[in-house]
């Protein structure tokens, strides 16, 4: 076989010749496929489902027939309009096509469930964002509002607490706050005692009674019995947040990449722009 017959271009030209030959021979430039409208079962099911969604009941046969006829009428007008080129220079259609195209580009990112490996990689790249805050085991004594206990009284109380001369439960003023916190993270503590209090804990010595530490309620003495420093979160701790962020980032990136790919094929010139 001559080498030229293996050239794809020749196949293409040959095919084109056949098509032209057909239209020449039949005396029309009409592609019969363009004039076939088939409403198959899946189309009918879609129409029926749409009706049920709107009216909360299935359509009667008569209503269904009317829906199908409407669908056919629309399709005919749609195709005739395309033949007349009515889709050109129409900003609605242009915008709709733009939206569809962008939707297609984003769909990969949006539809796929990310694998754990992908999420883990995303977390590694955004480490600061997903750290678990420090958590504490601590005891607290509530002294009352600021000024309720003098400085000398506080020094004495701390000594007595640390020497075991008094029990925390005996000197704490009544308030509906937990006297013991076990494994409480910073957010949880901030929620109950206020944000500044949770921040101030970080500076405290552990293992003995210290203070006073201020909260919105007043003053507290604190004994941190155990502190687990903050650390990067494990995926399972923050899965939902990571998935949301990953998806948002994928969508944005995919869109950018897709546009970049298309754009590189275009020679764009703007008057007045170098």
């Amino acid at each position: 076989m001559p080498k030229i017959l293996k050239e794809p271009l020749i196949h293409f030209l040959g095919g084109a010749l056949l098509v032209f030959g057909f239209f020449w021979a039949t005396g029309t430039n009409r592609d019969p496929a363009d004039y076939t409208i088939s409403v198959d079962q899946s189309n009918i099911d879609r129409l029926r489902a749409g009706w049920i969604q709107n009216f909360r009941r299935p359509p009667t046969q008569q209503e269904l027939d009317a829906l199908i006829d409407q669908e056919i009428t629309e399709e005919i007008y749609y195709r005739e309009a395309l033949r007349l080129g009515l889709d050109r220079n129409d900003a609605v259609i242009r915008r709709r096509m733009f939206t569809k195209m962008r939707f297609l580009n984003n769909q990969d990112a949006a539809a796929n469930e990310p694998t754990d490996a992908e999420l883990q990689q995303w977390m590694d790249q955004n480490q600061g964002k997903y750290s678990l805050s420090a958590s504490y085991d601590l005891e607290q004594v509530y002294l009352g509002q600021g000024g309720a206990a003098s400085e000398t009284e506080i020094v004495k109380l701390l000594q007595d607490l640390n020497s075991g001369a008094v029990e925390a439960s005996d000197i704490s003023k009544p308030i509906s706050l937990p006297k013991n916190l076990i494994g409480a993270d910073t957010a949880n503590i901030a929620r109950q005692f206020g944000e500044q209090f949770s921040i101030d804990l970080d500076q405290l010595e552990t293992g003995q009674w210290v203070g006073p530490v201020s909260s919105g309620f007043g003053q507290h003495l604190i004994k941190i019995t155990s502190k687990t420093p903050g650390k990067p979160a494990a995926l399972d701790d923050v899965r939902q947040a990571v998935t949301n962020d990953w998806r948002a980032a994928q969508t944005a990136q995919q869109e950018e990449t897709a546009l970049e790919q298309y754009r590189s094929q275009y020679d764009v010139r703007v008057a007045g722009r170098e």
Partner: protein
Amino acid sequence: MRKALLIAACSAALAISGCKYVGDDPNGSGSSLENTEFPEQVFWGDTHLHTDNSVDAFGFGNRLNAEQALRFARGEEVTATKGAKAKLSRPLDFLVIADHSDAMGATKAIKDAPRIALLGNEFLLRWHDMLNESDEGALQVTAELIDGAAKGTLPEELTDPADQAERTKDLWEAHGETVDEYNDPGKFTAFMGYEFTPMPGGDNLHRVVMFRDGAEKTTQVLPYSSQGFAGNPEKLWEHMAAYEKDTGGQMLAMPHNSNVSNGRMFEMQKYDGSPIDKAYAETRAKYEPVVEVTQIKGDSEAHPFLSPNDEFAGFGDAGWDHCNLSCTGDTKPEDYAGSYAREALKRGLELMQTVGANPFKFGMIGSTDSHTSLATADEDNFFGKHSQNELNREDRAMQPQNLGTREGRFGWHYLSSGYAAAWATSNSREAIFDAFQRREVYATTGPRMTVRFFGGFEFAEGDTADLVKAGYAKGVPMGGDLSGGNGEAPKFLISAMMDPESAGLDRVQVVKGWVDASGKSQEKVYNVSWSNADDRNIGADGKLTPVPNTVDLAKGTWDKDSGAPELVTFWQDPEFDAAQHAFYYVRVLEIPTPTWPVYDAIKFGITLADDVIRIQQERAYSSPIWYTPKA
């Protein structure tokens, strides 16, 4: 061929996105969420937030969508429409995005629509041009929209149910997907919801609708529009019943802004003017277990006209109590009774006696009704009612808010209020929705006070030592019912703890309503616990010595050690009659603090007009506990 491929790919993609829920755990991660035995923690949320899908929010310029609203609510920083960085001081635990069902997404659609598509429609074309032209133009469109909705003169394109269904369907499904993605049981609960927005003649009959379910069920219906029925709420309840029957899901509705309803929200007749009957009362109580009593557009708990002996009844009434929502109808004195929640609770007791059921048996919450996608209710971090008066608009407090014909309303009339507190057994859709359903919820005007309220016949004074345990073991929590008791007066355990990021407490009050022997409802406010009890007494006039005002207006501060960190008390009704229907709810007042315009004045160096309210006492309203005489 290429075209065919594209279409095939498009349909496939659509199919995938449409089928996303199949086989999915509708609750999200499938993590093992544990419910506590009784509600140990109070969860904070906003049930009434508008995003760019709301026809007016978009018109006001809001360009933040549902995803950004959810991110903000769960504590992340976002950039507000007008460019200011926005972050909550503390995250919220739950959020209901409640965009208007009427014309959902419509302004966005009109603005984005190509001009050519609107050429045949002068009305919409004008709006399109105004929306694209400038902020002022967009505001004017929004004003016309609200006005048109009030007068029933909106163009058919915006009100036709079929058109609307078409437009809403895609939007609602996409919204469901976003909300499901952000629902994170145990950490942050994202609810599906919308706002049903009828306002016949400008009288506000709005309800926020909230679903217990995820998108799998909620997208089987569309947000119910008020246009077809001119806003008869009975039609909404029918729709809710049909949804529950068809899907096995659950919905509830929360009336709000009764303060601008000119007496229609809690009127003593049905929407069509016929008398209230037992079936109506039962249906209403079933589908509307909670009312939103405080929000940006004023406070609806009480009014001085109705409660002349309550010196705190006027909170958040200024600017809102002289005309209805659109200010197309003046408020007459006889309208007040149907506009405020306390009076409605009283009317409910009267109806209980006359028709045998109470249509106004509701709990109370606060929410923002913010149209900025930002659920803010802190005075020093208030992002305003809509995007034209966000935090960085210097003169917003003094700007007239003459939307439509809202004469005499100014920026400063807006309250930086409120939030909803729910005593739930976990932070999940099911647990929080169920807390709303049993009315174990309360309202605050922004600060996150912790309020417990239990009623029963078995309590003793010493029970305050372990109030929660005794409360659940021997009584009912807020929202509950009491009956029986052998004629003895009911007893109550009450605790209120300040918000550690806000101010100390002035006092705790019990508001009692009852029906007297003549069948007429009465009310009385009791001061039951207060700060500085040594220096403050109840005088001969029954009034408690006011708490000192420590506000420094130049700095926006107050004495952090003034007021009580916590008030705990046991209280028994001293004027009880076992034969009379009654309700009791708790009102907690903070010490005086500055209002948001004060922070604006400090920040921007502007001068406020003399009539601007600069100092207020923020507050919490518990849901009531009802007493019913033995049959």
